[in-house]
């Protein structure tokens, strides 16, 4: 009997340790959080981004462009999840699955002009009222020319 209990416990431990780790966004703390790349305080929460690293640390960004600069410099290997605020709902969404719209007239804290949306439909809906832009997905952001465009 003891043997069976031991086997069950060991199996449970193995199953728990083998399950896929999930990563969630954390709250932004206005007093202490600054952008990992440009050092700006996060005052416009609606444009903020964050990366949950596999080691449990979080890196915070004030603008999608800074988040992408971090990924360029450090690669994706250590990233557990990456989040950005949805422009319409002001809620965290997955950077890798989001739809993005670029328009040089859109203001963002670093003036990169790229906004994030949960779905393509909501991006199109946004453009109908705020002006047309270039629709992008995560892959496009890797080659995107980040910086001010005149």
């Amino acid at each position, binding site marked *: 009997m003891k043997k069976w209990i031991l086997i069950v416990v060991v199996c449970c431990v193995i199953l728990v340790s083998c399950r896929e780790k999930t990563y969630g966004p954390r709250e932004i703390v206005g007093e202490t959080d600054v952008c990992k790349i440009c050092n*700006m305080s996060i005052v416009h929460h609606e444009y903020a981004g964050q990366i949950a690293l596999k080691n449990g640390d979080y890196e915070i960004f004030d603008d999608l462009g800074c988040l992408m600069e971090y990924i360029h410099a450090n690669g994706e290997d250590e990233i557990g999840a990456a989040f950005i605020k949805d422009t319409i709902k002001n809620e965290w969404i997955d950077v890798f699955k989001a739809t993005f719209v670029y328009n040089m007239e859109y203001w963002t804290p670093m003036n990169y002009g790229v906004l994030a949306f949960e779905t393509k439909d909501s991006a199109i809906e946004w453009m109908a009222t705020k002006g047309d832009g270039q629709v992008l997905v995560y892959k496009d952001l890797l080659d995107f020319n980040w910086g*001010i465009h005149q």
Partner: protein
Amino acid sequence: MVKKIGSVLLFLLFMSQTVYADFDIQKSIDKAKPGATITIPAGQYEGNFVLTKKITLRGEQGTELVALGDEPVLRIDNTATVTIENMTLSGNKQAIVASGVDGLELRYLNIKDIHTGVHIQRSKNVQIQHIEVAGNKEHYSNKGNGLAIFKSEDVVVEDANIDHVQDGIYVEEVKNLLVQNNKISNSRYGTHFMYSSNAQAFHNTYQNNVTGLMIMMTSDISIKSNHLENHNGLNGYGMLLYDVQQAVVELNTIMNNRTGVALQKSTGIQIECNDFRMNQTALEGMKVDGTSMASNNIFTGNIMTARSDQQGFLLANNYYDDYSGIDLENDGIGDVPYVAVSSFGQWMVRQPVYQYFVASPSVVLLTSLDQQINKTENTVLVDDAPKLRMKQITKINEMNFKQLLIGLLIVIASMCLWKRGMME
């Protein structure tokens, strides 16, 4: 009698409340010929006024304009030569919004109880002088900027006094800019330059902000004779230059900040003749190019003089109060190099929370070891010609004859009184 006095007091009490003047400002603006001057009599006026022609709006002592709803008090659109002066402005959102104006002068304005003071975009030849902006004491993320200027050129901001806002002066995509003699305190950033060029910041005072001067993606900037003090929060900097090309930082007094001056991703930065006093870290550099240099500065009372990543930056001819070398040649230059390299400093660049251990015994020991070991190595953050004497500023004592005469008279009078007292 008491009843009468009470009635008078009650009358005065009610009279001191908001009084809306009869003068119709918008009607006067609409009627005025281009180039006219409108003098607004003293009193409080509610409304949202729009200017689209050459005009001067001048208040008398006690003229106050209050916005209705969320619209700005004054909106100035697509015109030239507009002057607004001598009045108080208040409201919910913005005091003044100017777009596409060539020749805008704002003078002697007192802006209060407002989210954003002045918002200017796509304008040129802008002069802002003697403006007071006072925000509320909420967290800076809930407030707007004192002055915000976008996509404009030839802008001068001087003698402003800005307190408790998000960024005192926020500048984005502005060419040819002079910011001088301003005093900005208790805000996120005192002055925040972004994507601008040919900018000058002279004789400003920044105190108790998160960061005094935040300069980002800007080129050709001169920062001279400013006073940056008490930026000592967790993320506080006297001055932070991020992605800046060609800057001269000279003759500034940088004291009691968490980090005095920080350079990140910047090239061609000259830091000369500044006075770094009592900062936690005086100078910090990350990804700074090899041409950036700190020379002829005075470092006194700082916990850490300089720290950087492995790339470092150049130090030359500075005075360091913790330099322990000798000068056998008596030329005022130390015979052995000053080593600012600190392993701990480099760790602190990577992990800012290490700052809490900065003066611990183990860190002090580690820093001393660093200084001994690195003297023989050609590493970053080494000053080969450290100064042993700091430049003394000698002030000639001028005699004030008026004060001397008054003093003498008081002494003589006192002596006379004392003598008379003794005689009696």
